[in-house]
């Protein structure tokens, strides 16, 4: 029997990767298909005035870097160390305890050790030690330092675009080291060399010129909402009348443009229209949409601090031009991180606006008294609490709902209870996912921070595995069939994730469910929900 192959020998030939060397610095980066996004279209970079716009291909050897690229990186690094204490402190104090190692959805899903947050940061830290610390200069490799080379640059690029800046690791870090900060800086540095991805650069360029990521021109934006108006009339028998760019309105509404153009976000947009109409009919609520500030989301945030500021400026500028009292913001993830932690600082002070007060309930939103911008989940929760909405929960009773906390509203804002309160008031069946996969410990959808492209679908599916796995658990335990979320990227990214991992679970925004339950004055007997699906079980009650 000695001729039988030993299992181990047999198998070693089939191994995924050659035995990785004991030191991560010796493992060369390999840019794999399905894991990376295409390079930015040079035209988009030109529109924005970004440097080194050119055609280049990540999988080709020559990235056509500028001659002095190392100097550009070094100086950019230095400048950022001075401008951001976060960056400098995080470069210095990590003790590599490993608490973050298994907290990253990309590490869990892809099994690539360089996706451990600590190692992602070490990619930059190793160069930092080499360029900016005495010990690193003296000890070199043994001191954890390495010089900046083309291979290191490629490694940066590959892994900075395998991080969704979700901040889950920072919750567990004893020093609060936030990989999002590291990734943001890493991407800023890469941008200095024109190394962006197209899924970010082109939306940014679109947003700069037309006001929204999709490049929807004003008339088309109105057209799309007009379609919704028709659909709503067909379903409810009520014709809603949104207004656009209207000077003198009380409130300006800004939401991510994804909800105007992609299912199932469109149903959430219809939800907003229905809610606003209801409030106008009942309480004289006065709100306007804008085609100029037609984007709540901000892919500039995934590019650089400066770009974020350039895009976000439209919100206050439009509010000032229209003379509104305050701004209401739609359901979006990173938009709310920007509004909560950046907007007032970079685009404020918004002293031309008033401290937000709900015109219906009289509630003062004191938590937003400086930004003057209220989240629609806060707004709606307040309405429900005061009994201002007539809701027919039965229309949602076929739904068994679970809620995905989007990374930014949970870890960059702390909006955990408001959406749950709303869901419980418009649906009969609500089940939370396991505790360490929700709230501040929520798992990312795997497609945030500009990574929801098509060409990196494998990365997205792998990164979304921990989230999908938790959904699968409630799907199997409680028969959950609807995944609710308050983020436009989630609404775009989670449906394919569910299709792949947990077929039988659909995705919805909060206000789609609100609008389905909301009883409009003068509406006809509804036979379908906003998606045009027949309302199951409602037939029996129709005579009541």
């Amino acid at each position: 029997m000695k001729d039988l192959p030993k299992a181990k020998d047999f198998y070693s030939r089939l191994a995924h990767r050659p035995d990785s060397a004991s030191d991560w610095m010796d493992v060369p980066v390999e840019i794999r298909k399905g894991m990376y996004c295409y390079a930015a279209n040079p035209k988009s970079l030109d529109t924005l005035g970004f440097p080194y716009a050119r055609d280049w291909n990540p999988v080709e050897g020559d990235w056509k870097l500028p001659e002095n690229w190392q100097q550009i990186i070094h100086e950019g690094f230095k400048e950022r160390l001075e401008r951001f204490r976060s960056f400098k402190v995080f470069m210095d104090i990590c003790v590599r305890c490993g608490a973050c190692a298994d907290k990253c959805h990309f590490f869990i899903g892809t099994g690539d050790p360089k996706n451990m947050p600590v190692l992602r940061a070490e990619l930059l830290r190793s160069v930092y030690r080499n360029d900016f610390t005495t010990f690193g200069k003296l000890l070199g490799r043994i001191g954890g330092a390495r010089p900046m080379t083309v291979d290191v640059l490629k490694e940066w690029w590959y892994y900075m675009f395998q991080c969704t800046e979700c901040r889950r690791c920072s919750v567990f870090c004893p020093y609060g080291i936030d990989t999002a900060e590291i990734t943001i800086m890493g991407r800023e540095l890469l941008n200095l060399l024109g190394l962006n991805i197209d899924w970010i650069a082109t939306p940014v360029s679109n947003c700069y010129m037309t006001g929204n990521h999709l490049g929807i021109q004003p008339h088309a934006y109105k057209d799309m909402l007009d379609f919704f108006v028709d659909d709503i009339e067909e379903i409810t028998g009520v014709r809603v009348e949104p207004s656009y760019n209207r000077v003198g309105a009380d409130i300006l509404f800004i939401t991510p443009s994804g909800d105007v153009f992609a299912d199932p976000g469109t149903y959430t947009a219809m939800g907003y229209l229905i809610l606003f109409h209801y409030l106008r009919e009942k309480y004289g609520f006065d709100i306007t949409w804008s085609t100029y500030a037609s984007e709540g989301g901000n892919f500039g945030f995934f590019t650089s601090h400066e770009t974020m500021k350039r895009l976000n400026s439209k919100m206050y500028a439009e509010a000032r031009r229209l003379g509104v009292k305050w701004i209401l913001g739609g359901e979006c993830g990173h938009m709310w991180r920007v509004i909560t932690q950046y907007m007032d600082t970079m685009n404020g002070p918004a002293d031309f606006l008033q401290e937000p007060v709900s015109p219906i309930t009289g509630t003062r939103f004191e938590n937003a008294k400086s930004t003057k911008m209220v989240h629609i989940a806060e707004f709606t929760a307040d309405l429900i609490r005061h009994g201002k909405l007539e809701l027919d929960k039965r229309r949602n009773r076929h739904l068994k709902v679970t809620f995905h906390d989007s990374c930014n509203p949970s870890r960059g804002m702390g909006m955990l209870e408001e959406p749950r309160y709303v869901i419980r008031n418009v649906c009969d069946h609500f089940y939370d996912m396991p505790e360490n996969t929700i709230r501040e410990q929520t798992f990312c959808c795997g497609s945030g921070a500009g990574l929801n492209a098509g060409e990196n679908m494998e990365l997205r599916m792998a990164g979304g595995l921990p989230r999908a796995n938790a959904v699968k658990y409630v799907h199997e335990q409680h028969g959950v069939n609807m995944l609710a979320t308050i983020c436009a990227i989630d609404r775009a990214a989670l449906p394919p994730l569910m299709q792949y991992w947990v077929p039988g679970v659909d995705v919805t925004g909060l206000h789609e469910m609100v609008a389905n339950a909301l009883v409009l004055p003068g509406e006809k007997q509804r036979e379908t929900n906003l998606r045009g699906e027949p309302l199951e079980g409602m037939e029996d009650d129709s005579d009541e």
Partner: protein
Amino acid sequence: MNVKYMYSFLAVIVLFLIAYVGTEAVGLQWLFGVLIPYAALLVFVIGFGRRVMSWARSAVPFRIPTTCGQQKTLPWIRPNSIDNPTTTGAVAVRMFLEIVTFRSLFRNTRMKAKADGRITYQLELFLWLGALAFHYAFATVLVRHLRFFMEPVPVPIKLIETLDAFFQFGLPVVYLSGVVLAAAVLYLALRRVFIPTVRYISLANDFFPLFLIFGIAFTGILMRYFAKVDIVGIKALTMGLVTFSFPESEVLKGISGLFYGHLFFVSVLLAYFPFSKLMHLGGIFLSPTRNLTTDTRARRHVNPWNYPVKVHTYEEYEDDFREKMVEAGLPVVKSLEAAAAEKE
């Protein structure tokens, strides 16, 4: 063999030999007993100060705390004021818990699904416990050592010694802190060797301080319980260091090389400190994701280097799309006619 921990281990052995041979064979007691400790202390104080100053010099452009609990919004929703602190007082509580109890590490929960599908949680306590044990034991040892620099020894220090010797066994009585310190360091080092993910991320810089501190604890324990060094002479030297009145060379020469090895380890640790990850001692106070309030929507934070940026204004936007806007019935500021007239 992994070079990272071998190099660190060898470095520590070599350091000890340098001090031991330097004093026992070469007679450099003044160098290792007086000059180097002073120099090390100087490096520590200046280095530490400079590092903290260099952090402080960097701006805090944005308020980016990690919110780990419910925000303060509507009056009927209970906010989590510690993990999402809106006031300076609450931030102080958050920082206190973070620094004193390592709260974030404590969040490290593990979940287990039972056979019947129910889920139970258990804390992944070992790292947290190991870290706590290490830091507290180290602190106690440090405080206990103050007795070498004070005459008479203050009551609080005596009290701590009494507590530390609570179990009253061994002769001389065994101090718990020393044993715990050595054990915790050993655990933290073994963890780096045996847990694969942690080994993968560990650098020589991570092993060196652990081995060094283990060396300090080990030589300390040797001196106290086994080697029986000249304690009177040592106290004369340490008091001399704080009062600048040094004992006779004869006294210095009478102290064992073991002590000079111990002291040299401490000196190296002090001098190494400001240039290493050990600076997390200072850095944790400055971590922007923990030490800032989260009331960023209610109170404006000012960025010291905020500069104007190029934007695409509404006027430019309307110029781009005026015709289409008019056609779609969207309001415009400038009519088509007015815009055309302006062009001419």
